[in-house]
């Protein structure tokens, strides 16, 4: 029932500290993780290791920004892992050259064109999700589950299950530079981390300061009320899934570039990690609540935790257990924060 108000008015001070801990939980969790592993291993808290860990977090982080937008809208996107793989494979195929039968030539698009085309593919697949959900009223879980299978299947079909290993391009064909995303650094910072920062900043600004952000929060909180207030709820929905797909393509490019290979099985279960990051960051799965800052903290909590466990030599099986426990704990705290408020009347 609704009577779960357990406020203790006698102790306002301890209550405030509790609130602070609850609201900043992802932040404190991250600090705790860094502190614990720094004590356990001298190699953990070094600039070099932090940068390496961050470039791993980048993939999940980019995915989870897209996931955050979808979840704020009251949906879920299970297809991002598959879109990531499909985008990688598309990029790989483009790097191998496109044969145009009619002319009997093979075209080698330059890297920038590969990137643009791949992003378009990601956005288009995402838009399919959006149309299914917004126009055909398929529940998001089901629509994106279906697209998850289809995208993965197409990636497998395109490669026959094999992996593109040669993504370097060649000088002669004018398509070198694909590994730039995964290997280059600016001022010591990996490009992937910079990409993550740009994506996060743009999404944060969009959510906090643009009309579109306001529309997104409103239609996630109460779609009927938002619609009656003039919010174009369908357009918002389709856009959100398309952006999520495009960001999955960005992640796919970064990953392919880091590995200099693109395989159809890349990114399996990444969608779950992205959802976990969003939830740990304090967003409500029912929509309307959450922000980029929290989601970024969530992604770093997961990334730094599993990297730390690797460094101190704990088996990967335990990593899985720990990650699961963190997720459950986070959801528990979410329900403490959002649930239990009294009904108004």
């Amino acid at each position, binding site marked *: 029932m609704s009577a779960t108000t357990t406020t203790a008015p006698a102790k306002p001070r301890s209550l405030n500290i509790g609130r602070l801990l609850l609201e900043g939980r992802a932040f404190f969790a991250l600090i705790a993780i860094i502190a614990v592993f720094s004590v356990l291993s001298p190699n953990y808290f070094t600039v070099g290791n932090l940068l390496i860990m961050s470039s791993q977090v980048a993939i999940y982080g980019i995915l989870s920004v897209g996931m955050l937008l979808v979840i704020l809208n009251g949906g879920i996107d299970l297809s991002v892992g598959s879109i990531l793989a499909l985008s990688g494979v598309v990029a790989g195929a483009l790097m191998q050259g496109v044969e145009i039968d009619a002319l009997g030539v093979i075209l080698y698009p330059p890297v920038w064109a590969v990137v643009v085309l791949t992003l378009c593919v990601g956005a288009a697949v995402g838009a399919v999700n959006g149309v299914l959900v917004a126009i055909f009223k398929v529940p998001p879980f089901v629509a994106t589950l279906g697209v998850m299978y289809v995208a993965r299947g197409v990636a497998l079909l395109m490669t026959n299950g094999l992996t593109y290993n040669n993504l370097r391009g060649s000088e002669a064909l004018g398509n070198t530079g694909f590994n730039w995303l995964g290997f280059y650094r600016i001022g010591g910072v990996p490009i992937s981390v910079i990409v993550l920062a740009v994506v996060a900043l743009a999404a944060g600004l969009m959510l906090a*300061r*643009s*009309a579109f952000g*306001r529309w997104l929060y*409103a239609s996630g909180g109460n779609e009927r009320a938002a619609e009656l207030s003039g919010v174009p709820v369908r357009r918002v929905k389709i856009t959100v899934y398309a952006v999520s797909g495009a960001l999955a393509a960005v992640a796919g490019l970064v990953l392919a570039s880091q590995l200099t290979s693109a395989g159809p099985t890349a990114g399996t279960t990444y969608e779950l990690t992205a959802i976990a990051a969003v939830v740990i960051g304090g967003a409500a799965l029912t929509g309307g609540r959450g922000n980029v800052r929290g989601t970024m903290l969530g992604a770093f909590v997961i990334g730094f935790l599993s990297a730390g466990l690797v460094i101190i030599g704990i088996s990967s099986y335990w990593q899985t257990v720990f990650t699961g426990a963190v997720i459950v704990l986070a959801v528990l705290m979410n329900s403490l924060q959002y649930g239990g408020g009294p009904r*108004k*009347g």
Partner: protein
Amino acid sequence: MTAPRKTAPEAVLAARNVAKSYGQVHALKGVNFDIHRGHVTTLFGENGAGKSTLMKILSGVIQPTSGEIVLDGQPVSFANANEARDRGISIIHQELSLAPNLSVRDNIFMGREITGPTGVDFAEEERQVRALLTELEEDIHPLTPVENLRLGQQQIVEIARALSVDSRILIMDEPTSALSASEVEVLFKVIRDLTARGVSIVYISHHLEEALTITDHAVVLRDGVMTAYAPRAEIDLEWIVRNMVGENYDLGSPPVTERGQVALSIRGLSVPDATGQDLVRGLDLDVRAGEIVCIYGLMGAGRTEVLETVAGRLRATAGQVVLDGHEISHLSIAGRIARGLALVPEDRQRDGLVQTMSVGQNLSLASIGRFTRGLFTSRRDERALVDDSIRQVTVKTSGGHAAIGSLSGGNQQKVVIGKMLATQPRVILLDEPSRGIDIGAKAEVFRLLATGAKSGLAVVYSTSEVSECLSIAHRIIVMHKGRISAEFDSSVSKEQIMAASGESVAA
């Protein structure tokens, strides 16, 4: 009044020096309140006075910060609403608390299912639901999903649920805000039966005259303190208003305005109901700039459907809507708002408010364009707009940042009105906008509409309170079963309007 009124019998349930604070907000500041056996105690007070808070404390929904509750002379404390219900106290909440996807029957017995040897005894439940609905003279099938019911019918279901419990103390927090006069009459008959059987009732309403006809005792709350208490014989309307707000309000008469061009023209409009049958058939209506038109009708007359179709939420099967000479039937809701057509919807919880956003974000939601500069919104301009709206519709709140759920019911309603007024419309449609707002706020809304009309705003105001029509409208349209059954100017009498609506004129 037929039955002779008893003089104060003992108090069955009482609040002793009860206070409730939410952080810095002191909703109740030491209130004493008695509920007498077999009596109807009415509770009056402005929006945000603390009425709902007090009732929630008495029914165990929330716990007081200090003070105690006395039941049959014994101090008690309820951990939750179920405990209070087990002791015979039930409450009809101001905001509906039904599960929209479940049927009427399942909602009424939710959590208290009647079980037989083979699980839930659905047949028995259905029989009881039918009996309850017959008593309330409402023709609803027990297996209809609640989401298919109109707001007023949902309110009836909420009432039926409270009645099904057989409690000795029944608290009604604005049970009639979406009911029409004849349904209120039926409810009052039920209430009289209940009190005759010794059930004690608390009744809250902003329809003061209506509440006066049923009350035995009146209590007035103001800013969390009890300011007056008197038996029926000593009170009248003027007494209530004086104690509630400290001055008297006259809702006045329609403003003198200049009529301009036809601003909104509806031609041959037909609207289907959920089953696809035409609920509204071939409706014609013209509203001029500067004119205030009131649509009066019973629940189910099709008023909400007409307004929602004009606003773009429902699709018409036939007909045209013309705004300032332009056909707008093809436009989206957003497009219509941009052209200056705004709708204040009937159901504030479902259609009006975004519960996850603050008071300010709700107020500014429909006019984001007004404070967007290039790509980004301007915080300063937004704050100015929000502060303006809060002042304009007199929302009682600690500020734009407050959670929408922390407002009292009437103040939430004001936010919905303020949000649509902020779009600076040329035509505004209001669907039962006075639901739950106090007399002062109603006067304020009327004043805003009158000022708007003087500068050319066209107003369509839907209501089921005749007196509201008479004090604001230049023209009164009566709807009955999806058609316009009569049209009057403001010199008409109450009885004429009610007769045209198909309503049996009550005493």
